[in-house]
């Protein structure tokens, strides 16, 4: 390929210095206009727009809106961890992932291999979710519930975008 337009990059390669600088500006203001970013970095607005689009299309970077659970009508969030026996943890994880009020599900190396973040509208929903996890989910040996109280830091710079 002889096309050497600056927004093109070889398949599979990562970010270059221009991308890094663009991401840095987006970190300060996710909605900064391409022309504004370009002015700051000494690049054309078109180049900046193309780079952002290419990173997004390539699954490398996405500018997202992260909103607090309270906006969505939830009142509480808990981390619920499950100890599993006699069944692959991934099967339990997939069952949980299908629920709308389960925000995230991870398989970890710990004693409780299935770890999920659950949102609830009220305490009754939480009690019911824990009851279901214990009584209705096959293979669940033990459940650990941590009600999240205060958030002291939330800096979402990296995440599993491919999931």
């Amino acid at each position: 390929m002889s096309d050497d337009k600056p927004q093109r990059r070889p398949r599979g390669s990562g970010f270059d210095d221009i991308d890094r600088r663009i991401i840095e500006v987006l970190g300060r203001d996710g909605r900064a206009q391409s022309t504004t970013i370009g002015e700051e970095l000494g690049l054309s607005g078109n180049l900046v727009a193309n780079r952002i689009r290419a990173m997004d299309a390539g699954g490398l970077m996405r500018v997202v809106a992260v909103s607090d659970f309270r906006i969505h009508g939830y009142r509480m969030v808990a981390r619920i961890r499950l100890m599993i026996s006699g069944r692959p943890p991934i099967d339990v994880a997939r069952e949980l992932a299908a629920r709308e009020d389960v925000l995230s599900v991870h398989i970890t190396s710990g004693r409780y291999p299935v770890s999920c973040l659950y949102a609830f509208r009220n305490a009754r929903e939480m009690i019911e979710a824990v009851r279901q996890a214990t009584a209705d989910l096959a293979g669940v040996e033990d459940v650990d519930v941590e009600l999240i109280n205060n958030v002291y830091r939330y800096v979402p710079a990296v995440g599993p975008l491919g999931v």
Partner: protein
Amino acid sequence: MAFEPPEFPATDQLDRDIARMLADDARLSFRKIAADLDVTEGTVRGRVKRLQNAGLLKLVPILDIDRAHESAGEDHGQHMLFITVKCASGKLDQVRRGLLALPQVSALYDANAAPRLVAVCILGTLREAADLTDKVIALDGIREVETELVLQTVKYNAAIAPIATV
């Protein structure tokens, strides 16, 4: 000490709809959002600003965890580690400050009205995970440390999370 939930401004369906429209593309034009939701562009702009100021909405670039190390070098991205810490009585604030001083800690919560802290850490290498665990164990006021390395993410919702800090 009684648990007092922090106060946040009331939000309504319009806030919810705006947050949902911005979720996957925070750079979507306010004009488009306004047209879809049948309000003025100024209303959308005002709502977004208000939610941002309250800490209820963040518009941020997220790098893919499998690719981030290509960008920022190997001390970024790649591995997610949960560290759960039980603190000795009266030491919660001190331990919390110690954890917040660690740059690898990308999120920190307390749970069950304390004295338990949960840190979500982003690490470049497994070696770094071991070093970080050592640093946490060395913090004064720690009673118990549990680390869990994320092996697989089955579901990840970047749009809704506990994000509003106190």
